[in-house]
């Protein structure tokens, strides 16, 4: 029995409605309890800001495409090198670091749970292997269904039950957590060298449209009672004028679940462009946020970009090809049979580029114009917009108008004309930041019931104590202190153990991988469906019996079981 007593903590816990109370937290065996014995270890937080452990609801840290990003950028491995020290493995890399590098840096920032943004089911083993080497964070995996042949067949037949059954089987086989749609239909079209430019355009050879895929899977998601909603990367990412596609997509979403959103739209910054070409691109953040503010059934995340060198990696193969045509730099393209694709290219976001400056401003506009912080979460689509180590700077920008003004003064002159960022006076407070970095994520991902993202009795003891005194720091003026404070926690506590102290990792991690097993009735299970098995054996290059991920790959798997309403 291990016990820990955190005293004098200035707690902000939005899920339980606690905002800046000085209180003590008792921890026993990795859970928060009422009280502990006097033999417990004591941590004095000295009234510093104490939040539930950070949750990143969309990041790319594990899996085949992240690893291929590492292959492709030997030059990045020269950056961020740290030697082996105590419990810490060697690390290297800045925008695609080693798995341990990712884990340690997240831990130093107080993050304890990560959602891998895209895992192709066929390549799930690799993702899970890297999860075990990302030891300080609990992991969840979004599973890609955007070009899944069986799903598209079910969509064409208007058979929601069948689509749900396919999803349930695949999630179980891949040990996945939620449904991810990346440019739905577009990745399948890319298999034919094509892309879809509208959500009402038909996928070649399948006679379904992205709109049908999205709406069917939103219904299937609720039939399966999955903890998270459909996680959508909209069509037409990164094209000037794409905001209309985004708005059309939002119009499709019904409000089906009172407990959480029905659609999670990710990295919306990349989907909020007006204009028609790169020359006249402008911000449409106001239109997007007007739609979000009137639709509680949608939660989005920022997809903020920051000025630096980074790597873009996504399942959206055609988009990466377009980017490659712009940059003429190295490029990787990948097709996952019957499921999805992917592409990777390196980019540098520069203040000299008007387009990059406008993208930077749009991300901030989205966060500042969305009324409820629960509906716009903070992330950079790591590493697509910027490596996650930039989060503290984004927090600083959101909390301080002065910081924004100073940054704006250094941008390309066109930015002011084509965005409304200059006019936004809003400065977020500590509570809103806590929502945008952990509580909102826990609610959106549906893991608050697993004890994540809050500090109530029985919750997992994932706690981040930052060296910030909220009563003594004025974030609007002293934004540097805010940025520095969020870069390095005083203590990061993971399941009741102090894992990181002042940025130094002090124990070996033992994370868990959450996955969902949605139970469907015997009669529509895919392993009993002769047609599904026949097509599987006919088209896949692997046998159906070899396809599911064995439990060996998840040494600390945690299964969430749901009863489907089918």
């Amino acid at each position, binding site marked *: 029995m291990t016990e820990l007593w955190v005293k004098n903590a200035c707690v902000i816990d939005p899920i339980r409605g606690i905002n800046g109370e000085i209180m003590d937290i008792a921890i026993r065996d990795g859970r928060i309890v009422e009280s502990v014995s006097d033999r417990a270890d004591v941590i004095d937080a000295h009234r510093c800001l104490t939040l539930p452990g950070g949750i990143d609801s969309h990041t790319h840290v594990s899996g085949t495409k992240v690893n291929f990003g590492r292959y*492709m*950028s*030997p*030059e*990045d491995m*020269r950056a961020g090198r740290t030697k082996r020290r105590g419990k810490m493995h060697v690390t290297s890399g800045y925008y695609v670091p080693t798995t341990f590098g990712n884990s340690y840096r997240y831990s130093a920032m107080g993050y304890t749970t990560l959602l891998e943004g895209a895992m192709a089911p066929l390549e799930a083993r690799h993702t899970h292997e890297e999860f075990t080497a990302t030891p300080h964070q609990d992991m969840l995996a979004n599973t890609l269904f955007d070009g899944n042949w069986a799903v598209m067949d079910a969509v064409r037949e208007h058979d929601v039950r069948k689509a749900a059954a396919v999803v349930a089987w695949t999630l179980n086989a891949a040990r996945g957590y939620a449904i991810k749609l990346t440019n739905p239909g577009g990745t399948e079209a890319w298999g034919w060298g094509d892309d879809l430019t509208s959500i009402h355009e038909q996928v070649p050879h399948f006679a379904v449209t992205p709109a049908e895929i999205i709406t069917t899977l939103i219904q299937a998601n609720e039939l399966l009672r999955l903890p998270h909603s459909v996680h959508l990367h909209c069509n037409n990412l990164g094209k000037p004028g794409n905001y209309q596609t985004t708005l059309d997509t939002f119009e499709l979403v019904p409000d089906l679940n009172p407990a959480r959103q029905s659609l999670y739209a990710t990295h919306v910054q990349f989907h909020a462009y007006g204009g028609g070409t790169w020359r006249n691109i402008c911000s449409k953040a106001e239109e997007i946020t007007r739609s979000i503010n009137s639709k509680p059934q949608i939660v989005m995340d920022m997809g903020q970009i920051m000025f630096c060198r980074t790597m873009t990696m996504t399942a959206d193969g055609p988009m990466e090809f377009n980017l490659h045509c712009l940059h*003429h*730099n190295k490029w990787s393209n990948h097709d996952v049979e019957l499921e999805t694709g992917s592409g990777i290219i390196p980019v540098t976001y520069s203040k000299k580029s008007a387009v990059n400056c406008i993208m930077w401003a749009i991300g901030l506009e989205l966060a500042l114009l969305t009324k409820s912080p629960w509906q716009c979460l903070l992330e950079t689509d790591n590493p697509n917009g910027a490596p996650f180590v930039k989060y503290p700077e984004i927090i600083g920008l959101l909390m301080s108008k002065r910081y924004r003004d100073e940054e704006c003064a250094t941008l390309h002159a066109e930015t002011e004309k084509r965005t409304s960022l200059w006019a936004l006076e809003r400065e977020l407070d500590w509570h809103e930041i806590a929502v945008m970095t952990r509580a909102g994520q826990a609610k959106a991902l549906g893991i608050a019931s697993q004890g994540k993202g809050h500090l109530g009795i029985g919750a997992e003891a994932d706690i981040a104590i930052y060296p910030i005194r909220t009563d003594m720091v004025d974030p609007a003026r002293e934004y540097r202190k805010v940025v520095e404070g969020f870069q390095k926690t005083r203590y990061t506590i993971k399941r009741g153990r102090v894992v990181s102290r002042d940025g130094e990792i002090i124990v070996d991690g033992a994370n868990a991988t959450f996955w969902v097993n949605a139970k469907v009735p015997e009669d529509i299970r895919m392993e009993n469906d002769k047609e599904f098995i026949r097509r599987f054996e006919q088209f896949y290059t692997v046998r159906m019996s070899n396809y599911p991920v064995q439990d060996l790959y998840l040494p600390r798997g945690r299964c969430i079981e749901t009863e489907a309403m089918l």
Partner: protein
Amino acid sequence: MRVILESKVRKKPSLPIEAEAIIPRNFLKGTDLVVFEGNKERTLSELFWIFVEGTAVSPENIEVVLKGDTSRIKRVGEYMDTGTILIEGDIGMHCGNFMSGGTIEIRGSADAWLGREMRGGTIVCRGNAGHYCATGYRGEKKGMQGGTVEVFGNAGDFCAEYLAGGTVHIHGHTGDFPGVEMRGGELLIEGDATRPCGNMKNGSCVILGTVHDLLPTFEKSGTHLLPERNLEMDVYTGDVANRGKGTMMVASRALRR
């Protein structure tokens, strides 16, 4: 001030020495420097006989002389910004990495990655240079950005890859792919070259010898007379496969006698 480092006989002479500490500025405070031999940390005096002549108040006046068997010493002159290094024999890999000023003279031959990602200063190599002379390291898109590299012998493959600025002058022949991915700077090859300047974006390359396997993605745009050599040159633009605007000049066969 002159610092002479004469290498001692080593038990395992093939073990590489990582000597990024050997730059003139570091000798201002004495010769108490640390290098790695294999994975073992060594002081300079364990590996070299050290002779110091005269004194210096600023690093510009410091000359470091390397004598003896120096062919396995790597990273000499890394991040060097001023002063002089004279190497009497051969030198190992990565000599003059990221150098931004000063002079390195190599009397013998240099191993691979001579002057990689150099920003300024001068490197003169009297012998041959290995592969990847004056380039960027693996994956790096900006190679040498300034300064001068002059090689009196031959250079290996991928000479001046990703050259972005400065001048590279090879008196002898080069191997395969010189000037590939060039995006600036000047490359002059007096000898022969094979498949030069693939994917070149910008900059200029002059080849006075024979070009083997000229890539088909270069467009001939005219001729030009090099007055100082009285040579007629064919001028090519490319690499058109990469929308390149670089210039490659190759001596015209007809007038080369």
